């Protein structure tokens, strides 16, 4: 029971922190570009404003269009409950493993892409088509990175992977883990719609991917979708932070341990936000048809990770 409550607790934590994380990345980016930028808490204000606005939907849209924001939000939140952020219960966490996490996220993408097609605009279809292309090509990399981690841990359970690295700190700097980290980092940029794959700040029709897909959304629907994309960023950051560098995660239920874990986790998030912001200021957006090349680089990295994990086992 405590297991489930902790999962829900971590989900709620993610829910609260996710908009802030998006804000932090934007704020660091603004500073790096010599802009003053909006304050880090701006996304909270945006969400509040969107929730207060009317929803306008297209006259061609069906019930699917109205269901999708709820479905995307709930599947992403469900994943946030599964991914360890500050606490990990060892040795078992039998609700969902890494594969489940990946496929639950795909569930959200699937419906979002359908909703992009629903109002019948060219932009929505364009966004859906591109989003599904990138999601499909990123999939093998994710699976292989999971394999790379699972080989050493002997499990696809998130708890097992964390426990294995905690028990053998040397694993974190093993070639298998480092390569898998690099592969998953590239995938993170693709899946969360970051530069150089997609530009979250643009609304230039011809280059956008994620934003084109959700162009017809407004009001509370848009708020739910924006919140869900924030959650997705949070989830990928948590995976990167805690699967590869699990130190600081609380393994016992004491207030002290939880508090320390919370601060360590915030530190890790801030570090990743800084890295992402630096990358986003340094690189230009890739042409759409160069993206598969980048993703095949990540695929090769993941494959090398599996092979080296395998040989060094």
């Amino acid at each position, binding site marked *: 029971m405590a297991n489930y409550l902790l999962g829900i607790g971590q989900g709620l934590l993610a829910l609260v922190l996710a908009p802030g994380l998006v804000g932090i990345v934007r704020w660091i980016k603004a500073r790096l570009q010599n802009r003053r930028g909006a304050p880090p808490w701006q996304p909270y204000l945006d969400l509040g404003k969107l*929730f207060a*606005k009317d*929803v*306008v*939907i*297209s*006259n*061609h849209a*069906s019930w*699917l269009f109205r269901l999708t924001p*709820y*479905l995307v*939000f*709930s599947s992403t*939140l*469900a994943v946030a*409950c599964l991914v360890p952020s500050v606490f990990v219960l060892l040795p*078992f966490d*039998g*609700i*969902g*493993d890494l*594969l489940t996490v990946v*496929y*639950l996220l*795909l*569930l959200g993408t*699937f419906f979002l*892409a*359908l909703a992009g*097609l*629903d*109002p*019948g*605009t060219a932009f*929505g*279809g364009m966004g*859906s*088509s591109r989003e*599904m292309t990138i*999601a*499909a090509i990123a*999939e*093998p990399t994710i*699976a*292989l990175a999971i*394999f790379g981690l*699972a080989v050493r841990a002997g499990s*696809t*359970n998130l708890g*097992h992977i964390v426990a294995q690295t905690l028990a053998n700190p040397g694993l974190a700097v093993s070639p298998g883990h480092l390569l898998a980290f690099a592969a998953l980092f590239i995938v993170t940029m693709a899946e969360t719609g970051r530069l150089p794959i997609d530009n979250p700040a643009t609304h230039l029709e011809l280059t956008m991917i994620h934003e084109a897909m959700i162009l017809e959304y407004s*009001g509370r629907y848009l*708020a739910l979708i924006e919140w869900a994309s924030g959650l997705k960023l949070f989830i990928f950051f948590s995976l990167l932070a805690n699967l590869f560098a699990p130190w600081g995660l609380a393994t016992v239920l004491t207030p002290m341990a939880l508090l320390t874990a919370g601060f360590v986790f915030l530190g890790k998030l801030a570090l990743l936000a800084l890295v992402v912001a630096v990358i986003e200021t340094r690189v230009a957006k890739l042409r*759409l048809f160069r993206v598969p090349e980048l993703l095949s680089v990540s695929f090769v990295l*993941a*494959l090398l990770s*599996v092979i080296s*994990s*395998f040989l060094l*086992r």
Partner: protein
Amino acid sequence: MISNLFPGMVLAYSLGMLAALASGRGVMGRWLVALGAILGAAAGLALGVAVIASGTPWAMNTAALFSFAGGLALRVDSLGAFFLILIGIVAIPAAVYGASYSKHYEDGHTSLRQLGLMLNLFLLCMSLVVMADSLFTFLFVWEGMSLSSYFLVITENSQPGTMRAGLWYLAMAHIGFVFLVILFLLASGGDWAASFASIRSGAAGLPDAVRNAIFLLALAGFGSKAGIVPLHVWLPMAHPVAPSHISALMSGVLIKLGIYGLLRVALDLLGGGPTWWGVVVLGFGAISAVLGVLYALMEHDLKRLLAYHSVENIGIILMGIGAGLVFQSYGLMTLAMLGFIGGLFHTLNHAIFKGLLFLGAGSVLHATGTRNMEEMGGLIKRMPWTALFFLIGAAAISALPPLNGFISEWLVFQALLSGFQLPRPEVAIVMPLAVGMLALTSGLAAACFVKAFGITFLAIPRSTEAEQAHEVALPMRLAMGLLAFLCVGLGVVPFTVTPFFTQIIAELSGISAPPTAFNFNWTLQNTAGFGQMSPTLIAIGLLLILGLIPLCLRIFRANQKLRVSSTWGCGYTGQTPRMEYTATAFAEPLRRVFAQLYRPTRELSIDFHPDSKYFVHSIEYSSEITPWFEKVIYGPLVGVFRFAANQFRRLQSGSLHLYLLYISITLILLLVVARWL
């Protein structure tokens, strides 16, 4: 009780055939035919359930029938029982659907008599295939199944292309049949009357070369039925032209009997083999999966698209079975069990969701009169039930949780991911490659079904036919609803059926997994806790959150207003279907990414205004992908046959005198041969 089920099944199918022969027309006739099929399939299903529940095989031999070949020997073991259940699960909805769907064949162009007769015969033959217990029985009913399904494929024989597709199917089925005849005669040492029991006991003593030859022949012979690449060419031709409930049966059940045959020969009769067997099966599976989905992506004919997805899913099933064979050859029995369970479960799941999708495609075809997705759109408002059921099928085949496709793909993934336990690195390295290909397959499948559902059902209708579409009749909706319910049910509570797979595999191959290895209570768990997940809890969690969001929005007083307005068109008003994204456009990025494979040819002709190049009259654009297999493999093959046929044609002059000469020469030659040899 159990002994009455088999005669009941034969009786029901026979009555169905008689009803078809009598007329098969009108409401009464169509439903009588369907009733025969429904009752027959239900009796078969009950027989399967009884055998699995009791754990004891059921057998009978009609020595009087075909006494020259040892009689018609039948035996239902757990594997056969599983496939009987699978036939029943798809055949019952398909028959209900068919009774209503075949109404539009009452126009006089189509023979309902042939359709009804062959439907019942086809179902009977399929049921007998999984019961057959001797060489002759198996080959006899296998051929009956191929022939009856051929007549079902050519039901709409007045439509262009149907006969050609039927010919391809017939040719591929018989190439496969030749392999099977050689296989069984090799295994039995030339004895036509051999029972499976004697083949089984004799197989252990066969030299390795013969065993390998039998395995390869089984892969080719059963592979041509299952549709593994490169023997898949008949699927995208035959499935679209057949009536939709027949497509559902062929894609859901018929091709699965190829899997049945492979399991029967490789696991049961031969009792497993060297590692390379598993690697070969795994390799063909991976190639079929990836190529199947890649070709499906480029397809805009809804039923052809689904046919290519059958190739893909057969690939996924074979990946599970191949992994199982590899593990078995190294004695890693719990892992082998995991692979086989994944393969078998995916067999069941694919039968259900592909049956559902073909019935859904049939409803769309029924309502719009076209299979071309580019002429559809907006059907979700006109056919809400069909759209909902098709969406469930599409999500299930894309392996999205919490539906059944996800569970079996998860199990196959777990089997492949456990590959690191293999002692030999050169074999184990195959596994990550397979994992990558399986992941690519499922990602592309999701993209393909966003296209299939999105273009067909969403947005604005692209043709007047689509605009005037109507929801299909109640029996058709019921049939789809039943299958959709199973997709959800098996996804949320898979552990209600998974223990039976353990039993089936254990009985088939003698693999016994320790009872604690598979914890299927509320959580699915891989051997030794390699991976765990609880589909039930995930489904409950998703539903809970889904319900809580609107509640929270109300509690926190979010704005509940909703206005309906026209779609934003950059200031341009008057949105038309021509502004929508098309299926071709949707698949274009992937076509470019995989251009090396597709080798697309483009033709663009622009008709300018005679006075100025700045005004365009019309633009014509057409693009096609290279059909490699038809062109490179089958093209030359067909050419050789055509050349030979042309040469033989010279013998046929049409002159009676010449034929009399041929006859007398042949007769004299035969007499001479008979005298001196």
